[in-house]
């Protein structure tokens, strides 16, 4: 696709000369680099609650962000008005970061190489509203039908289509059209007058409505949410203290996101504030562990054809056989660290400065039979599903919260336990990985990662993994 056929050129009558003139304006007081990020985001969501379709919302936001980099400094401004005078004004504000004679931009853009990870025939908004309503109604019915003890169900279907265009002062131009869809189901279960218990499931990715009609129907997520709520009805108090923990495959990969992923983002390492700073080449995990961040997996929630700085995403090896291999780089940090961007520059929207972020982070499969892993544990905890997590990248301490887990007694899963946090230390935790299963699974597509106030969609994955020592935060001391 050439520039003149691009969404922004067509919709806002932009020509390449305009982009060059905005970039020149941005570098009018000097600076090493400037870029423009145009974004047009259309969203829609529909929600059912108490069997009533209570909400339906649609909307559009658009704008452009202008960034100037001068050494370690960044100037940033944005406008939600794409008229030439407003974009120029934003460029002049961003330019204030530099103090010197104007820098010259490369004229003539070259269209950046990019992947085609989420081909899409129809725009989500061209598909019928009636089908969306049907999805949430089906989810509601399936969750209620799962068990008579389910008494409340909420389901939300949300999708969006984002058009982006990035133009840089070194002559790179890229466009992308990024779909995203997600179905979430929450269920509450209660036995008689007992305490209600909560279950949640959801999924999606860079897909459209079709995915939920043909690949993962709403019933799949609804039954899972209902099942989790029902399991909790019989849960016993979670154990407290250090013990062997087995993580089930899939979403428990959030461990990797928190334990190592954030600590390997280049900005923290450039500043020397990460527990992983200066440790490339060192053993930071058991030799059984190879951890990848891969933005190039088709239709995954964390995938991107190009990152938010116009660089194609790639498959980055973070830890190979336990040895720390590399950081996740964006434009700014890679310039300052004399490295290359790893296609990891991401931002929440045109109002935000990009920074190094994860895409889809997972551990490669090992050789152990998942059942054998559980059988090898005399006493411990098996975690099947998690809620969120958080990390302090400086001390390396991270937590993640198990929402569905079971006691392991004499090699067998026994009682389900109540929700509990698990806590570990990034550079230490993975050294205790003693078995890695052959059953790598990626999550269903629900992850949202927050960093410095910016949220971006991400994916995680992990095979069944045995960790010999980890602190479990229950109440049964």
């Amino acid at each position, binding site marked *: 696709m050439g520039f003149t056929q691009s969404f922004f050129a067509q919709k806002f009558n932009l020509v390449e000369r305009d982009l060059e003139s905005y970039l020149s304006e941005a570098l009018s007081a000097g600076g090493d680099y400037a870029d423009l990020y145009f974004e047009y985001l259309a969203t829609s969501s*529909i929600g059912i*609650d*108490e069997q009533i*379709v*209570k*909400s*339906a*919302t*649609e*909307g*559009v*936001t*658009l*704008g452009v962000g202008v960034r100037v980099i001068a050494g*370690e*400094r*960044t*100037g*940033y401004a944005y*406008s*939600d008005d794409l008229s030439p005078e407003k974009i120029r004004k934003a460029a002049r*504000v961003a330019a*204030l*970061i530099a103090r010197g004679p104007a820098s010259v931009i490369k004229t003539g853009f070259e269209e950046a190489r990019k992947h085609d990870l989420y081909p899409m025939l129809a725009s989500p908004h061209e598909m019928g*509203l009636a089908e*969306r*309503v049907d999805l949430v109604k089906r989810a509601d019915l399936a969750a209620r039908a799962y068990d008579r003890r389910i008494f*409340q169900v*909420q389901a939300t279907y949300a999708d969006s289509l984002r058009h982006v265009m990035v133009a840089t002062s070194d002559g790179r131009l890229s466009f992308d059209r990024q779909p995203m869809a997600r179905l979430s189901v929450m269920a*509450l279960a209660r036995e008689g007058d007992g*305490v*209600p*218990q909560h279950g949640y499931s959801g999924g999606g990715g860079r897909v459209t409505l079709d995915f939920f009609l043909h690949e993962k129907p709403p019933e799949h997520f609804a039954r899972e949410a209902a099942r989790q709520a029902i399991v*909790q009805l019989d849960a016993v108090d*979670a154990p*407290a*203290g250090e013990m062997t923990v087995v993580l089930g495959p899939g979403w428990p990969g959030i461990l990797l996101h928190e334990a190592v992923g954030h600590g390997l983002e280049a900005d923290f390492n450039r500043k*020397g*504030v990460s527990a992983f700073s200066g440790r490339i080449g060192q053993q930071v995990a058991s030799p059984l562990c190879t951890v990848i961040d891969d933005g190039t997996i088709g239709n995954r929630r964390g995938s991107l054809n190009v990152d938010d700085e116009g660089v194609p995403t790639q498959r980055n090896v973070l830890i190979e056989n336990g040895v720390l291999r590399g950081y996740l780089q964006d434009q700014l940090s890679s310039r300052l660290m004399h490295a290359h961007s790893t296609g990891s520059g991401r931002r929440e929207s045109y109002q935000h400065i990009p920074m190094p972020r994860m895409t889809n982070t997972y551990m490669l499969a090992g050789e152990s039979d998942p059942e054998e892993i559980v059988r090898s544990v005399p006493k411990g905890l098996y975690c099947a599903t998690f*809620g*969120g997590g*958080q990390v*302090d990248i*400086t001390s390396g*301490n*991270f*937590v993640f*919260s198990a929402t569905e887990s079971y006691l392991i007694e004499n090699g067998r899963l026994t009682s389900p336990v*109540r929700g*509990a*946090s698990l*806590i*570990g*230390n990034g550079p230490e935790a993975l050294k205790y990985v003693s078995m890695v299963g052959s059953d790598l699974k990626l999550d269903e597509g629900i992850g949202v990662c927050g960093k410095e106030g910016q949220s971006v969609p991400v994916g995680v994955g992990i095979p069944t993994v045995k960790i010999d020592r980890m*602190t*479990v*935060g*229950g*109440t049964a*001391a």
Partner: protein
Amino acid sequence: MTDLEQLAADVVKRARELGATGAECTISEGEEFSASVRMRQVESLKEAGSRGAGVRILAGQRAGSSYTSDLSREGIETMVRAAIELAKITSEDPHAGLPEPEELGSIHADLGLYDDAIAGMETERKIAQARQAEEVALAFDPRIQNSEGAAFNSHLGRRVFANSRGFVGSYRTSSCGLSVVPVAKQNGSMERDYWHSAARAAARLESPEEVGRRAAERALRRLNPRKVPTQKVPVIFEPRAARSLLGDLFDAVNGSAVYRHASFLAGKLGEKIASEKFTVIDDAILPGLFGTSPFDDEGVTARRTIVVERGVLKSYLLNTYSARKLGMKTTGNASRGITGNAGVGPGNFFIEAGERTPEQIVAGIRNGLYVTELIGQTANTVNGDYSCGAAGLWIENGELAYPVSGITIAGNLKQMLINVEQIGSDLDFRGSIAAPTILIGEMTVSGQ
């Protein structure tokens, strides 16, 4: 009427013309500025403004919502038509509707939400404050050689609301904040902490010296932490940690959770749910604070509500919808972005201060934990289960003895509220949720 008030009223009018039986429009605009400094150099400057409009319409008992950042005539028309179309696919909801006319209104006294001094502040002065805060932290102790930087940010906003029952109102807000994140290092231990001051008026911001010093002290006292054995002990939450716990209580008194029975406090109105020392208030009309506003996001007059009085649950916090579901009246706590059905949000939601200083509370503990940081919030407000990563200081014989980290604290909120044994005198409003130091008689600390 201002231009934006007129625009909001026009949106409502246009929705009625297109067949809506009811409509509400929110318009928000803001200008943000932030400057960050790291290792004594300016790291970034950001400055910009944006605005957006949203509409929610009712067609009988069906609702539809939409929003746009394009406030041109064409953008607004597209937005209104989208909401009208969406209301055709939602269900009849017998409880949907706008607030009753007599509930609509606005506080006319000056609530101190806007300070001209913030708008007039020079960029150089803002950068200088961030620079000074970081300098103080870096110079505080030789063990502080690095920093994640310091930032000064400011925001000027305007919020406008109109509905088809004749309400039109707007208010301006301002805020500024100063923060610094020093990194302390000693014997292979590296720890960071932060201090953040925020205020609606420039003069109420803590000085760069204060912000820098407190951040440095906090980072230093975390160095070389230990991991303690698993045990049940009294736990003191310092105000920053207590605030997060109070946020969990907010989720449990939130009317939207209560009507779904998704709160451990559903059906407990009038019952004793906490220690007698425990009184919680939601007050949206305290001047100059972050939870203050003249009206809520449905145009209902802002007010003060006693939520828990000496341990007894007195009121939930409600918007119009959750109030109708529960057969009650709205408490003026409607909250939303610029579109959609309103949710429930806090005004200034706080624990009333007690009489003892934090030092006195610590002095009363022989063996226990003083929590300074919670990570990975895990409160389940459906059943009350609470389990959270923590860092802080271990208390031995009434004194803060040594730092601890890599631990969790766990209990159940129902029991934790009953077990509140002390409340500090150090109530401090740093956001819309505010708490003094609190002591909970017993929790499980999980470590080695």
